């Protein structure tokens, strides 16, 4: 007799270790692929895995085998018109076609080894550059928490969820319904009995039989259970995502000529990180992109990251536009407002004082958090000096100079700390 073993409950991830080893081995290539992917992705689009391709020559495992050429003979099936001695021009595939020559996966090309990173793996690589503290990492990577909310009633559940009123109401209905036919019958029999009593004695067999019948029907009615499992009703609870509030996030970036591709890439990670933070806290998030040089405009994401303007820089134009948009569309009574500004710090020098004024009067009172990064290696300019004043006066303002990606996180440190306390 054979043994039949159910192995389904055993772990399915026997290969997880090997997969991790594989990923570790090709971490450089994958890292590069992830960086490329981030450049292509939208700020709001971080919650999925990614297709990664690695050059085949890196992943191949060499072994001794024959190359092309020489004198070789192969057997093939399906001869149609050939005869012995026929000469055929050599097909393009070259010699030795047929064996070991596994077909490529749907035109994907044989030079690339393709596979998919899961969402978690992708985020890990994303976080790695940012050098986030571990606690923050797990918080960001966690799927939204949910809370149980009541949603109607069901016919099965656990005893603690029994809804007494509903259940008894159901029981009563059932009892009435089940009694009805017996009651009708009793009513008929009683009418008959009354009729017969006019002509017969109490002790007559007919009367006795009728009385017996009525008694039995009454017993039947008594036997109908007061409550049945069928009557039970339970409160139904469903999962609903916990955060129920909404937020708006302003991305403000200097797009003047001095901001190059690298600076923009860094700024993008800055915005992404804030966005990720917000998705963990708020259910609904809107993103407003404001780009500016001497003039500020609200743009779509594409233009935000890829357009290049030349000319001077007037930061206050962007701040003014931000303040206006807050006024018009996002009353702080309904919206949690976050703002992130990236710039190379260069500003028309008379403008910085105006910036400080707009910030203190029209923006800072309304926003939850305002983060500013200066992407430059030059010495600080007047905008930095003015912002320093704001930092001193407002606890929800953070600023930092950034030279590499790992510098980004500290700007948000306070923000994340705040959340941990909650």
């Amino acid at each position: 007799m054979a043994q039949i073993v159910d192995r389904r409950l055993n772990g399915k991830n026997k290969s997880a270790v090997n997969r991790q080893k594989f990923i570790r081995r090709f971490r450089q290539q994958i890292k590069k692929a992830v960086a490329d992917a981030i450049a292509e992705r939208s700020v709001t689009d971080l919650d999925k895995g990614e297709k990664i391709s690695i050059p085949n020559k890196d992943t191949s495992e060499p072994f001794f085998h024959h190359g092309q050429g020489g004198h070789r003979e192969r057997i093939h099936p399906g001869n149609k018109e050939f005869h012995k001695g026929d000469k055929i021009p050599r097909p393009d595939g070259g010699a030795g076609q047929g064996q070991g020559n596994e077909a490529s996966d749907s035109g994907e090309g044989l030079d690339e080894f393709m596979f998919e990173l899961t969402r978690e793996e992708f985020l890990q690589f994303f976080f790695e550059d940012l050098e986030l503290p571990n606690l923050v990492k797990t918080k960001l990577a966690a799927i939204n928490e949910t809370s149980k909310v009541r949603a109607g009633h069901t016919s099965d559940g656990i005893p603690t969820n029994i809804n007494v009123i509903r259940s008894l109401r159901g029981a009563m209905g059932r009892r009435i319904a089940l009694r009805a036919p017996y009651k009708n019958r009793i009513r008929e029999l009683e009418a008959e009995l009354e009729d017969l009593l006019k002509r017969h004695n109490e002790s007559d067999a007919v009367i006795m039989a009728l009385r017996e019948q009525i008694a039995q029907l009454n017993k039947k009615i008594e036997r109908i259970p007061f409550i049945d499992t069928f009557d039970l009703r339970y409160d139904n609870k469903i999962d609903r995502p916990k955060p129920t509030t909404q937020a708006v996030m302003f991305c403000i970036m200097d797009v003047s000529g001095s901001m190059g591709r690298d600076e923009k890439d860094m700024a993008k990670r800055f915005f992404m990180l804030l966005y990720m933070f917000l998705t963990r806290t708020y259910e609904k998030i809107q993103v407003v992109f404001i780009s500016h040089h001497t003039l500020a405009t609200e743009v779509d994401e594409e233009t935000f990251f890829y357009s290049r303007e030349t000319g001077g820089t007037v930061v206050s134009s962007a701040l003014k536009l931000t303040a206006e948009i807050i006024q018009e569309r996002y009353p702080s009574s309904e919206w949690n407002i976050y703002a992130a500004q990236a710039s190379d710090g260069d500003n028309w020098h008379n403008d910085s004082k105006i910036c400080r004024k707009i910030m203190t009067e029209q923006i800072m009172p309304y926003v939850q958090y305002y983060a500013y990064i200066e992407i430059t290696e030059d010495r600080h300019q007047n905008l930095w000096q003015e912002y320093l004043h704001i930092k001193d006066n407002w606890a929800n303002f953070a600023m930092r100079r950034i030279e590499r990606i790992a510098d980004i996180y500290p700007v948000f440190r306070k923000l994340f700390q705040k959340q941990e306390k909650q």
Partner: protein
Amino acid sequence: MSKQSPISESSEWTFELIEQYHREIERIAKNFGLETYPVQLEIITAEQMMDAYASVGMPIGYTHWSFGKEFVNNEKRYKRGMMGLAYEIVINSNPCIAYLMEENSMTMQALVIAHAAYGHNSFFKNNYLFTTWTSADSIIDYLLFAKNYIAQCEERYGESRVEAFLDSCHALKNYGVDRYKRPPTISMQEEQTRQNEREAYLQSQINELWKTIPTKIDTELDQKKCCFPTEPQENILYFIEKNAPLLEPWQREIVRIVRKIAQYFYPQRQTQVMNEGWATFWHYTILNQLYDEGFVSDGFMVEFLQSHTNVIYQPAFDSKYYSGINPYALGFAMMTDIRRICENPTAEDRQWFPDIAGSDWQQTLDFAMRNFKDESFISQYLSPKLIRDFKLFSILDDDRKKEIEVTAIHDELGYQYLRQALAEQYNLGSLEPNIQVYNVDVKGDRSLTLRHYQHQRVPLDQTANEVIKHLASLWGFNVRLETIDSDESVVHTFECEK
């Protein structure tokens, strides 16, 4: 006699049904004289099946990135629906483990039981290559030992060092096969104690070998002795394990593990056509018998036949699905054909197969299964009728000529030629480059020289350069690979300086 009613009508399987089907299949298999290891059927999920795939069907494997790569690859193809998971993974062990995938219908489960648990199982137990070269009783123990040992090494010497070392061993695993000595059968505990002894002993031996104190005796005698090894060796990994001067004991043990596992799979590589043909023949025969006895319904048979037909489909050479000869198709056709020759021989069969025409088919098939490997099986049993059915033809591709040439087709003149050529195509000896350890410069720079004996002027692929690098890291000194043509002259040299 009352008509037998089918065991089940629905396509859902249950444990009871699997047991019932198994009981009938076992009975029929026994009636046909199949001799097997005890059967262990394991129900697994699709994910677990992919795990099993990635570890080349080993139920327990040591960890290495290449298995991860394999897994990632399968997962991707499975998710895109490009690959149905094969319905059979079966382990050559005692008891013989066959996997049944949870998603399969009852019909498919029955098919797998017949195919893997009885077809392959009986092949593993009786084919001479398997009985000589693998030990089904101890393989699971050995794999467990290997897994633990390598995990220990990773802890002690660092994952990256072990990984790099395994890379090098894997590059040479096809050359870690011992063709002359039979591997011993031992349990895991024995393996462990022996391993410790071996460690100590080996290290002392290696040191001996290199302790050649230059005593000035006869220089002529010296020159004669200078050839080490005294005879060329084809088991490169074995040579490394025993002779590489700089390896540490744990590294020698890892070489040995890779070598042992390669040895375990070696018979499978030599009997693909036979093994699959045998298993396919028996699932076909057994399930048809079930049907004849009334245990299965028409619906069952239709589902089974559809799957069976897909398995044995052989696209023609000009089809876009063509990728060589399908071993299932060829093997099944040959097994069926042998039965036909036994039961209904034609005049042609009597002329070609006087010994078996008209004989008892079960005995004849059993004999064929036990005593052959693909190469000899084809050269013995491929009949003219099959050559015609498959419309086989042979193509000669000579790089010195502009055009390729048809050397034989399925006609009277071609049968013998095609049969030999096809058999040769399954000769692992000529499929894989013939490379042997030739010499070690014991007195000089300790460099290792390998020789590739060229057959029909077929060159080595350039990736040999990479393999040589791996070999050099195992050997610890320079490695040279010389390609020798039929005139005994060196035509090409790969070299790796350490």
